[in-house]
């Protein structure tokens, strides 16, 4: 064989491997999503959304309590996390722009994004559940908000930095105070970007289970009282999938289907907005 041939063969093998790897990535996606789709769709009934759980081991019932609980916890987390994240990002990109403190905080925020979520669950247990004396929906919401804040903060910082400085200078020249400039000019310019960040951060926390295990706990009845234990889809999936009953397994699949679908839609929405706005 000539050197030329060997080079070509090596290249072919390597590139074939890369193509295979990409195929493998796609294969997993199709496999997992397909599996969730098939099993979940089969168990998808109106009763799943409209009725509360039947007692363990008996047929029927639904997960209305978990759907509503999940929604409440996620909404409350968003209500806490988004304002803090957006304002925090504003400080880094505006008031502290270029200063050392801004760089330190944004590096720390990047690290916070990947801190094990179960550790955040134990943290909230120690500061909110134990002193209060009971598990509560609020504790779960705060745990999710802590995961959310660094994500929103970093996107906000990046998006605000993209707004041209000249825009602010023009407003300053008109005598506007900085806070008015930020709220009326800068936020408007970065609105879609910030919104995308918020959407993606909701997608991130909506599927979290570990931080809810010791905070919002679970409730087998329908409850909208955030001061009490409240059910969530993810914790219910954990309980049901581990349990011994076929009926539970089917409902866990259905819940998995709904939550996966919801999160993938949010993710796609976020991507579409980015592409539409920034290309």
């Amino acid at each position, binding site marked *: 064989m000539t050197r030329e041939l060997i080079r070509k063969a*090596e290249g072919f093998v*390597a*590139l074939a*491997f*890369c*193509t*295979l*790897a990409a195929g493998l*990535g*796609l294969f*997993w996606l199709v496999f*997992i*999503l397909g*599996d*969730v789709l098939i*099993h979940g769709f089969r168990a998808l009934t109106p009763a799943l959304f409209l009725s509360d759980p039947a007692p363990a081991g008996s047929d029927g019932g639904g997960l209305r309590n978990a759907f509503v609980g999940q929604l409440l916890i996620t909404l409350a987390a968003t209500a806490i996390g988004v304002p*803090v994240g957006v*304002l*925090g990002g504003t*400080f880094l990109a505006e*008031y*502290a*722009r270029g200063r050392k403190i*801004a760089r330190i*905080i944004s590096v*720390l925020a*990047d*690290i916070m994004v*990947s*801190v*094990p*979520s*179960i*550790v*955040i*669950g*134990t*943290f909230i247990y120690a*500061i909110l559940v134990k002193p209060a004396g009971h598990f509560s929906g609020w504790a779960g919401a705060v745990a999710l908000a802590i995961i959310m*804040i*660094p994500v929103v903060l970093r996107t906000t910082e990046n998006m605000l930095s993209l707004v041209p400085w000249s825009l602010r200078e023009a407003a*300053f020249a008109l005598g506007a*105070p*900085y*806070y008015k400039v*930020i709220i009326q000019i800068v936020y408007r310019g970065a609105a879609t970007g910030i919104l995308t960040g918020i959407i993606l951060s909701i997608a991130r926390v909506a*599927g979290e*289970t*570990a931080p809810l*295990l010791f905070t919002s706990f679970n409730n087998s009845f329908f409850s909208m009282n955030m001061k009490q234990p409240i059910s969530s889809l*993810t914790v219910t*999936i*954990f309980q049901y*999938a*581990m349990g011994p009953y076929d009926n539970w397994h089917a409902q866990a*699949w259905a819940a*998995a289907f709904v*939550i996966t679908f919801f999160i993938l839609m949010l993710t*796609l929405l976020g*991507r579409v907005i980015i592409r539409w706005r920034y290309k």
Partner: protein
Amino acid sequence: MAKILKKSPADLIFSSVTALASFSIIVFIAGILYVLISESSLAIKQFGVIKFLTSTDWDPVKESFGALTNIYGTMLTTFLSLLLAIPVAIGIAVFVTEIAPGFLKGPIGIAIELLAAIPSIIYGMWGLFTLSPIMANHIEPFLKKTVGGLPLIGMLFEGTPMGIDILTASVILSIMIIPFTASIARDSFNLTPSVVKESAYAIGATKWEVIKNIVMPYSKLGVFGGVVLSLGRALGETMAVAFVLGNNHRITTSLLDAAATITVTLANEFAEADNDVYLSSLFYLALVLFVMSFITLAVAKIFLLKAERKHSQ
């Protein structure tokens, strides 16, 4: 800049509010560290640091706890999953940046992002119901038959294939981290200036040679940062492995044995701990995990920042 403007009272209030919001990050990190240390103080007093980290004891009856089995499980699953994920992730990145025709780049990129967005509990559940039987009935017996007889390597495949073991957990974990690694590797590859690549093509290099000798060395810092970042992710993953690891507090050489990671131990035992030392030891474990992942993520961040700086020079 802001300093040159005369601040109105409203501006002062707004800027303080934003400052407060951004300092929340520091408060959280310091708060987590403080709370975990104070909650685990009982266990720290009782077992010390070195003894806790090196003891394989996890005995709720005798109230004697050590972290080593959990650390071992965490490290082993993380290492194995990286071993499985890195080649695939880099392959995907190469495919997306260099090989794929234009019309495929978008869809594959989106597919990878979707894979990253699937909640970890879905991976875990899928692992228990779908992957675990496949591993137990096909892949693990196959591995035992082929490489199980070899000396040394055979040790890794001792025992009965059950599908609920270190190997299955690592496979699921690897599927989970492939998208993280792949997307960071892709971004790093994209940073390679096309001028350099084109001049290599001009002197007759094949596509693979350009990737191997130009793109990869150029982006190695970024790729390395991505790998370490994935490592940080894998260390702290709970739900994906909780279903299929088996929560076994023992150090085993076989990949077909059950094990325990710090995260899985916390998920399974935190609510059940019925005496103070037990609960305190679980907080201690959480502290160990927090420190481990914080250091890993900080290292990843340093590499990624270096890569960024190198590019901007």
